């Protein structure tokens, strides 16, 4: 039952419009009616490929930036107790409270000041910024679960602390990094409010702003919209299905601290 919305999306995407706009839709469509028309039409009518590419670019960039920053910070917080720890905790909570619809106002002013409206860079940084605090907190949990003896041993063997971190700790924290990457990627991929506000140029839109543009035009072609929506989910679903085991095991380690 929880999966019905996804099922209905796919059914709508493969049905001809005449059956979609029916007062008595058939819940189980017959194979003979199905077609990929809507997928072709959606790509034909809208620059879906461009939007998907933009989303991918922003997501990969933002995820990489915040993952690196958060891994360094999370490790630091895990290994060294400083006052920064509490401040970071607070910063994290604050960002959790800070609505995107609010923070986008100063982002917009800043982007306009620096002439970065319509720039995918601005979008990438905006997404990276909101991801860092939570990712730091998540990763700190993982690093806490890795015994300190390991990097000490490596350092005695002549490694610097940084290389001990890179070559010993990071490989061990792989499930945590994967869980964190999923979290960050989903965050960026789903972003709507930044993309909508900071990007005007249609060729720089991301998939979420693109999807919304299907609504409010000359009659919504629900088949096309659902087809486009299904396409928009493919990258995240693949990532999710491949990395999902890390997510549960990652969270388990996280909560076992």
């Amino acid at each position, binding site marked *: 039952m929880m999966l019905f919305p996804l099922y209905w999306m796919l059914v709508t995407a493969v049905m001809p419009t005449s059956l979609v706009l029916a007062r008595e839709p058939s819940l189980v469509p017959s194979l003979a009616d199905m077609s990929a028309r809507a997928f072709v039409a959606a790509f034909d009518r809208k620059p879906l490929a461009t939007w998907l590419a933009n989303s991918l670019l922003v997501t990969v960039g933002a995820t990489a930036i915040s993952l690196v920053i958060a891994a360094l910070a999370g490790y630091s917080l895990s290994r060294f107790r400083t006052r920064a720890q509490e401040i970071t905790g607070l910063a994290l909570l604050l960002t959790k409270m800070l609505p995107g619809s609010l923070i986008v106002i100063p982002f917009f002013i800043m982007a306009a000041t620096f002439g970065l409206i319509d720039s995918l860079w601005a979008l990438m940084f905006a997404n990276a910024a909101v991801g860092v605090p939570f990712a730091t907190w998540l990763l700190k949990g993982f690093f806490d679960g890795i015994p300190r003896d390991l990097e000490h041993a490596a350092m005695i063997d002549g490694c610097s602390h940084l290389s001990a971190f890179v070559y010993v700790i990071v490989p061990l924290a792989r499930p945590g990094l994967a869980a964190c990457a999923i979290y960050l990627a989903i965050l960026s991929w789903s972003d709507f409010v930044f993309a909508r506000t900071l990007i005007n140029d249609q060729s720089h839109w991301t998939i979420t702003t693109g999807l919304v543009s299907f609504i409010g035009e000359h009659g919504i072609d629900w088949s096309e*919209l659902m087809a486009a929506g299904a396409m928009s989910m493919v990258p995240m679903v693949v990532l999710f299905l491949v990395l999902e085991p890390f997510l549960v095991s990652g969270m388990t380690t996280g909560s076992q601290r």
Partner: protein
Amino acid sequence: MPEVPRPAKRRTLARRERRFAYALLAPAVVAVAALIAYPMYLIFATSFREGKSLNFLALNKRPFGLGNYRDVLSDGATWHNVYVSVAYTIGSIVPAFVIGLATALLLNRVFPLRRWLRSLMLLPWAVPGVMVSIMFLWMFDASFGVVNYALRTLGLITTDIAWYTTESTALFAVIVPTIWKSYPFFTLTLLAAMQSIPVNLYEAAKVDGAGAWARFWQITWPGIRGPAVLALVLNGLWAFREFDIIYAATAGGPAQATETLGLRAYNEAFGFFYMGRASVVGVLMLAIAMLFVFVARKQLRKEFF
């Protein structure tokens, strides 16, 4: 057994270690300062700038004063926004928690294809908020939506309900997709917590003759209580500031029926161009969220830091 360094050497080592610690932290601090702290300062500063401000780059040329606070706090609509925000948050979080708990209990059992079912159950989490909204817009479509069709077939309604454009049903209609999007987060955290409960506890309880109900309350619940509260707080904060789902479905309408504080801030800023008022709404949101965190601080401290 690492050899113990001499005191002097140890001090420089400690200093170097501390410098290393700060160096690792530096990028995060810069990111947070430039992209979170400064914007927050900007919001706070803007909240004192009065009037309509169609030139975003000259906000600091607008008159300074407390007028925005007076306008917003004395405006009945603001308290309506607060009510909608709270109703939306509680209305979506409680059912999402119940569904999340139920699915976590289900997935904690061992059965064939569990891995795949688990992935599928968690999938809504990976769907962008606006797409969730669009899927439910379609299912709840007045004329051709499957929901009205089901209700008609069951004889529960005779005329179609326009869920998203009727004042009395719109809030419910944006809560449903929110539940769907947010339950996997509960499933995930609760499942993770359940899997860290030692199996032998259950075996011992079974030997003692405890039923399923008793086992849940005596073993499972104490084991997941902490993460559950944390998840409730985090998800509560998330729902309180949720924007995408509501914006794509109703943009706060009809007639402000679904206008949460987050929507109000955006509409004031990018619909009416009262940047100052929008900032005041934002400050109000932060104040309410902080109050909430303050109330839950004990639990948070335990789970968080």
